[in-house]
């Protein structure tokens, strides 16, 4: 038997592999922590990205967005915050403030394809009442909800083509329905 140096080499290699695993694990941990920082600063989930413009959001989801053709001049445009979630299907949420800035007055969320709008993009809200409304030749669902700020919001949810859309507003119901009924894919 000439097994003299072999066990030493194997032992050394095992030791080397163990250190490699340790270093790799530490590196992965550091990278994951660094990756989580931007989302933590923005108060978002890791996979929710902020787009710098509507064009940027459309580039990311590789589709034109459904936007209201009617937009009241009391609201500011472009949206204050554009949140994008890549996935199956991708989804986008636009947060709009009043013209002079301040708190969010309108949220317009949509999926790009068949599916539900993820809760990370549009948190669920308790409904106070619910009714049916006619939108884009189909039926939508109108609800009064308690928003994240504790105030009463109005929410309209409908489907348009293969997309699921939800609009939440703190404005008047008439304005909200007008916006929703004018929503279409921008040419």
């Amino acid at each position, binding site marked *: 038997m000439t097994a003299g140096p072999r066990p030493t080499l194997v032992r050394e290699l095992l030791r080397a592999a163990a250190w490699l695993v340790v270093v790799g694990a530490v590196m992965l941990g550091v990278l994951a922590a660094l990756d989580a920082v931007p989302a933590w600063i923005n108060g978002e989930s890791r996979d929710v990205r902020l787009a710098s413009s509507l064009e940027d959001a459309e580039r990311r989801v590789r589709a034109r967005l459904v936007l209201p053709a009617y937009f009241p001049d009391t609201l500011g445009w472009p949206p204050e915050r554009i949140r994008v979630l*890549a996935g199956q299907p991708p989804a986008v949420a636009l947060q709009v403030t009043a013209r002079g800035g301040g708190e969010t007055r309108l949220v317009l969320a949509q999926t790009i394809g068949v599916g539900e709008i993820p809760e990370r993009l549009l948190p669920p809200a308790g409904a106070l009442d619910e009714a049916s409304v006619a939108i884009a030749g189909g039926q939508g669902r109108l609800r009064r909800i308690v928003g994240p700020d504790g105030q009463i919001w109005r929410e309209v949810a409908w489907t348009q083509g293969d997309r699921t859309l939800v609009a939440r507003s703190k404005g008047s119901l008439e304005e909200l329905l007008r916006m929703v009924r004018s929503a279409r894919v921008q040419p």
Partner: protein
Amino acid sequence: MHAGTWADVAAQSIVHGFVCAVVVEALIRLWRVAAPTERLGLRLLAVIGPLVVSPALVLAFPARASDEFRDHFAVFTARHWEDVRVLGVPLFSVWLGALTASAVALLVMDLKPLLRRRRELPAAPVPPALERTVEALAAPLRVAAPPVRFLDIAGPVLFCTGVRRPTIVVSRGTLELLDGEELEAAIAHELAHLSARDPSVSWTLMGVRLLLFFNPAVQVVARAMARDAEARADERAGRVGDRVALASALLKLFRATNGDAAGGISRTLPFATALAEPFRRARTLDVEARCLRLLEPVPAHRPELAAARVLLAAAGLFLLTVVVA
């Protein structure tokens, strides 16, 4: 490709460079790698990562550029820092700009001596004793005895140069400064550089640095590789000459030239310019470390263990770079 895509490719290369460099440096310390050849091999992996693996991943897997990969599969995505803005500027752009600027500064620092106009000094007839020394030392180092260029100047000059026609340059000042043993050891060191084809390697490395001019990790690792090449030449020279004499020659040359072994003469060897760091303290520490290493026993080098560890590290680094976008 539009500018955004180029920025993504550059950012990925930079992050891959940092990941590879940090892991390799950690492994060198944890594995207690003392042999300069193994250190060179491991550090080469830190250069290969951003040079080969990063572009290969970009070309072979375009889906890695998608938000779905970046947001759901990648452990780290540089673009996520785009969502954090300071004074309206995305931090992604800030750090990409800052790291690129630091990499370019490191590269320019080492390129400057190369671009300086050369001061050609007339060659004098080579002393026969010096030629005999070079010939005698070349055989044990398995290198053809190179021509010697002798400079009849008082300043000490000793270096090797040339890719196609390797040459050793020695000055009268060096012959006067070093005693016989020290001169032999120092010439053996230069011959060891030639036997390892360090002039060609150093030019290749400078080419890689130019190609990855935006990558600070590559610039730093390349400098570390230059130090490894010096240590390797020391080790090889120590096998045919006296290690203590080589340490003594190193100290004498360093003291006489203020850290510039080329004696103010421009050189065409990027390894050498990489060592000509602008920080005097760093140069002093380099020489100190080399001398200490020469005074210690020869480090054990087990080629089979070294090769296995380099392969192990390569596999680990590849897996790490795959999950970083």
